[in-house]
């Protein structure tokens, strides 16, 4: 029974998901009417124009700079900025998504590696455990918005510009869940499994590769999923202080400078699509790896 459910994980989920999407879109349209009405009434009054309820609703869904753009406006903008420009054009949303994706991926790579290395150190060395872990936790209490501009400025002063500083901000955000998850994972072998290694008088290195690391794999993937989402946030935040040159962050900032709410929303949606894609890629890898390891959960 449970086997069958596992072999078809998506089965029966589509209906509820579509229902939720429908509810959100309805609420969105209603919200657009509610939030855009005051301005629309002002416009009608200034023009000395009479208006009906249906005219009001139609207008609130098609303003040029609405407080809350309606879904079809956002998707029209998304379509236009994705499909009607060359990918190398600065007006193409895909170009900006690509810029953000590259610093996200680089930051994720750095962050995961750093996270794993720190965790291995913390687990194997009592001094590191006591000295490093508090700093790792403290590092996350500093708001990233405060520290991001300083990273850009400091790295800029030593000649690092462009991709690397943004990737480092995203590293800063995403190493943390990996460290915490891996420390827990590397410490997760049960006492008998560890005793067994001791009866073989296995070296620490052998215990690490043959017991601790495989034990930590499920923890690692959970952490990587969190880190993937954080690294995207880090990359976007990293694009803000550079004066909005390129990237999803730049689109958000430019959009708010010029009151282009539609552009902000389409950038937001592009950002969340990227995060969803990234996280599901990791989930897919997890399934393959865990399956290959013979672990069933």
């Amino acid at each position, binding site marked *: 029974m449970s086997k069958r459910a596992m072999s078809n994980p998506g089965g029966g989920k589509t209906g509820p998901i579509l229902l939720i999407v429908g509810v959100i879109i309805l609420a969105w349209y209603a919200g657009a009417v509610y939030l855009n009405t005051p301005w629309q009434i002002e416009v009608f009054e200034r023009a000395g124009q009479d208006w009906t309820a249906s005219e009001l609703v139609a207008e609130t869904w098609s303003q040029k700079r609405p407080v809350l753009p309606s879904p079809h406006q956002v998707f029209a903008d998304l379509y236009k900025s994705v499909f009607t420009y060359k990918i190398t054009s600065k007006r193409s949303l895909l170009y900006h998504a690509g810029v953000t994706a590259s610093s996200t991926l680089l930051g994720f790579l750095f962050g995961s590696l750093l996270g794993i290395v720190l965790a291995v150190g913390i687990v194997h060395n009592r001094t590191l455990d006591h000295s490093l872990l508090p700093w790792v936790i403290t590092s996350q209490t500093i708001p990233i918005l405060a520290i991001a501009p300083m990273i850009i400025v400091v790295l800029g002063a030593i000649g690092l510009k462009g991709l690397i500083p943004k990737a480092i901000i995203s590293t800063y955000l995403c190493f943390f869940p990996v460290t915490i998850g891996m420390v827990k994972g590397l410490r997760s072998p049960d006492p008998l499994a560890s005793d067994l290694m001791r*009866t073989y008088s296995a070296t620490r290195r052998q215990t690490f590769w*043959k017991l601790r690391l495989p034990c930590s794999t499920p923890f690692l993937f959970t952490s990587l999923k969190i880190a993937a989402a954080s690294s995207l946030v880090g990359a976007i935040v990293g694009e803000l202080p550079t004066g909005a040159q390129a990237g999803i962050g730049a689109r958000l900032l430019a959009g708010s400078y010029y009151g282009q709410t539609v552009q902000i929303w389409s950038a937001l949606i592009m950002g969340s699509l990227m995060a969803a894609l990234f996280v599901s890629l990791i989930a897919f890898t997890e399934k393959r790896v865990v399956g290959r390891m013979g672990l069933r959960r």
Partner: protein
Amino acid sequence: MTEDAVAVVEIKGLGLTFETADAPVHALSGIDLTIGKGDFVSFIGPSGCGKTTLMRVIADLETPTSGALTVNGMTPGEARRQRAYGYVFQAPALYPWRNVLRNVTLPLEIMGMAPEARRVRALKHLELVDLVGFEKKYPWQLSGGMQQRVSIARALSFEPELLLMDEPFGALDEITRDHLNEQLLRLWEKTKKTVVFVTHSIPEATYLSSRIVVMSPRPGRIIDIIDCNLPPDRGLDIRETPEFLAIAHRVREGLRAGHDE
């Protein structure tokens, strides 16, 4: 069996006290015991009598606080580093990400044996515990009894002369347990290993052992050592015979005496 009198394990005046937050716990006290080559010695006693602790001391998983102990004439630490014993735990403790074959080859990998030799050796011991054809299965695909047999094959795989078994069949149903007892006895006859076996089942201890060590709790100490000279080719039917019942009776008396004190 004790006549050849080559001591595999020699224990003199051994004690172990755990320092806990409120009061020290005397887990073992005044233990004297010699285990000869080829012996099958069972430690029997109620829960908390220190029988598992005594076994862990032999395996160098715990350190005694007083007394002397040698394994193969060495300290337990040296013996452990020379891989003098195979340990079978209460739970199978198989690594779930390794299939049966790779669980059995685990100690051989650690000891640096070449891949092909590992395979041959593992298959030989899987045959000994009657698990040929299950090499590719993962632990979760096996029953509890089969998992414990894999763990026995794993302990045997590097061919230690001493086998330490800590209530290996404690979690199994009685039918499976009987069956594995019979298999273990045949295995012992075939391989001539020295076995130290922890149990709290009187029939199991009587059926399997050449000597039974009866222990009492708080502090854990030995109150009786019983030689059993049941015929080596015995089957499970022997449990109905007067000789068997006499030994079982003496074990029960010993346990009761330890309990009443």
